[in-house]
């Protein structure tokens, strides 16, 4: 879902850039004020894993592939603002180091994957987890649904951006959403596997593990 330079007009690039700059700025301030010191290396590890996982395109058929976004994963493990920061770091490294995603579209890409999938994913996850059974199974079900939904919603917003703020016709919107409804299944599988493994090994380091029956979390979502 990495938007290249040519997919957005200047006003759209600037508006999404401003939104992302605000979100990243607030995330940095929140890290400074509220981050538990134990979470410092975990922010780095999550960024490293999301970068690596985004390299792994899996085929979904229809001549199309997809890869993990990681917004939901980072949000569930760390919290909304650190998820935004993690995705911003990964997208910056990808754009500067590997020409993946246009430099003028960096703001839009951070808005989609950091703000919509990351920050949005956190609040969707908390909402879902509250209505599902308060158990490890309930937590993982909320994880899977959140992961799928973040990809679907981010792809819808992306499609609206490149239609209303770029050179494409409206027919791109349903195709984007349809393909990402499939890619989202991969996002759900990977995210649930990773969250399940971390919750099993070290629930005390999972920010959202306060939703478990034994309230395993020793750190809070930041």
């Amino acid at each position, binding site marked *: 879902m990495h938007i290249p330079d040519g997919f957005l007009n200047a006003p759209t690039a600037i508006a999404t850039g401003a939104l992302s700059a605000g979100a990243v700025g607030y995330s940095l301030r929140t890290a400074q004020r509220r981050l538990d010191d134990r979470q*410092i290396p975990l922010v*780095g*590890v999550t960024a490293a894993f999301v970068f690596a996982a985004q390299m792994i395109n899996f085929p979904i058929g229809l001549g199309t592939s997809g890869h993990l976004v990681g917004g939901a994963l980072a949000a569930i493990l760390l919290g909304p603002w650190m998820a935004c920061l993690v995705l911003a770091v990964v997208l910056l490294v990808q754009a500067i180091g590997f020409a993946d995603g246009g430099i003028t579209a960096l703001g839009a890409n951070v808005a989609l994957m950091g703000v919509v999938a990351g920050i949005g994913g956190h609040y969707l996850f908390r909402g879902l987890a509250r209505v599902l059974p308060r158990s490890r199974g309930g937590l993982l079900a909320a994880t899977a649904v959140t992961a799928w939904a973040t990809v679907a919603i981010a792809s819808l917003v992306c499609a609206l951006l490149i239609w209303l703020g770029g050179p494409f*016709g409206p027919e791109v919107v349903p195709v984007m959403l349809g393909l990402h409804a499939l890619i989202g299944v991969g996002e759900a599988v990977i995210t649930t596997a990773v969250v399940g493994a971390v919750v099993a090994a070290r629930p005390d380091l999972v920010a959202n593990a306060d939703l478990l029956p034994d309230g395993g979390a020793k750190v809070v979502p930041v």
Partner: protein
Amino acid sequence: MTRRDRGLLAVVLGGLLVAVMVGVVLSAFAASEPDGLESAVVKTQCAEAPDPEACLEEAAGEPVYTGAPLPDYEITWLSGLLGVIVSFVLGAGLVALLRRGRQSTPGTAAHSSRG
């Protein structure tokens, strides 16, 4: 270093090892089909084009920034290794600097034993 810190260190090293394995080894097996966004453009805007791939490239436009050392992850394993390391250092380094900055502001514990 306390026992809990050693536990955290194990988690961090374990996580980094997984990330390196994924970025360096598993990346060799990544699918090469266009991703969801590219494919959506190929199937709509570029559906009628004689060469859909060229049509997609034209839509993507000339990159504004051309200084990437490893464009399109050429030398895949090296891209994976460097990307993982830089993402870790940048992510952890940024928040570590912010936390240190906070410790030295007036009104907070300025002189912790860890300096």
